[in-house]
């Protein structure tokens, strides 16, 4: 891995020659920026959440859970790399450049995944609410009109089916557990709920992609999502919070690059090494 300055690393050698640096002289027709933003949205969800899960390494409540949650993070990172590679093919930047040299205003992840880890109940709440949406979204994307999106979604779907099984299992154990775990789990749900509205908000640019059959209709995912959430919460003896106000609505959410303060702090840590030594190779 290294910066995309023209040097070719092993996994780039098989890229088609058309993926050249954008220098004005290339005659590649560029797809709409809406597709780029959509693919970056999918990539950044995985990338940011993987980074958050990585913060649990060595600090998990038990050894097996430490390994399990970081396994989930690795799965998400692998998916993010596939999405970033596609985004890089669209606009000419490499995976590393997209990951390490974008500011938080250029990140397109959901606000939910950038929230800090908190205690384990907070982490599980964030994970389950995201996984339940993610598995529904990927199932829709396997039928996307864009072949590459459909292929990546199909590969990711098998992994994410396991993720949602895992996180819902833990949600039920902690919710229907001791008094302390139940209280913490309910508090975690209540705190994360205001970030869930954004998962179903579709702005005008994304609506064009939906109509073109490329993007999945996130708004239509709300009904199956809330049904699944209600069923899992019932088993966990947790209360579904009331839908009052949702952060990120009105076109000022993570998908538009308007983030909470947590993202820039996380990115500062994630990006410090390549930014300090831009010519580093490893």
């Amino acid at each position, binding site marked *: 891995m290294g910066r995309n300055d023209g040097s070719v690393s092993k996994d780039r050698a098989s890229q088609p020659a058309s993926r050249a640096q954008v220098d004005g002289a290339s005659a590649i027709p560029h797809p709409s920026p809406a597709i780029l933003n959509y693919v970056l949205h999918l990539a950044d969800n995985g990338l940011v959440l993987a980074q958050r899960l990585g913060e649990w390494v060595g600090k998990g*409540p038990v050894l*097996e859970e430490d390994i*399990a949650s970081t396994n989930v993070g690795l799965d998400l990172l692998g998916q993010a790399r596939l999405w970033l590679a596609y985004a890089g093919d669209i606009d000419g930047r490499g995976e590393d450049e997209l990951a390490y040299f974008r500011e938080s205003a250029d990140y397109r992840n959901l606000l939910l995944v950038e929230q800090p880890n908190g205690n384990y109940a907070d982490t599980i709440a964030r994970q389950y609410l995201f996984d339940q949406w993610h598995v529904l979204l990927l199932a829709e994307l396997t039928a996307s009109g864009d072949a590459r999106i459909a292929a990546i979604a199909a590969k990711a779907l098998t992994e994410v089916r396991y993720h949602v099984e895992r996180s819902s299992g833990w949600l039920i154990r902690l919710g229907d557990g001791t008094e302390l775990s139940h209280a913490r789990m309910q508090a975690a749900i209540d705190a994360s709920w205001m970030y869930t509205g954004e998962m179903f908000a579709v702005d005008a640019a994304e609506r064009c992609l939906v109509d073109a059959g490329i993007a999945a209709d996130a708004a239509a995912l709300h009904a199956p999502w809330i049904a699944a959430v209600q069923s899992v919460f019932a088993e966990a003896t947790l209360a579904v919070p009331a839908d009052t106000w949702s952060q990120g609505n009105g076109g000022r959410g993570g998908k538009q690059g308007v983030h909470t303060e947590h993202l820039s702090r996380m990115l500062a840590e994630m990006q410090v090494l390549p930014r300090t030594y831009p010519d580093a190779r490893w």
Partner: protein
Amino acid sequence: MSGEWPLWEIFIRSQHGLAHKHVGSLHAADAQMAVTNARDVYTRRNEGVSIWAVRSVDIHASSPADRAALFEPSNDKVYRHPTFFPMPDEVKHI
């Protein structure tokens, strides 16, 4: 917390194997968690096809001190080996 969860022994049959092999142990609260944790801890690099989880307390092992008495070599007991029958070719792999 892990001091309170029971210990489980994990056996995994890989794609290329015929029998479950013992791969290690882990702590889990119940059977379903044991299988899930085994999937995360022991199938990271090699795909498994089947996972068995058994509580460690349910495994009864022979004592090493009894090894001599229990496992006396039987090679010199020719009367135990059915080697005096001519085997037809068709049943060679019995």
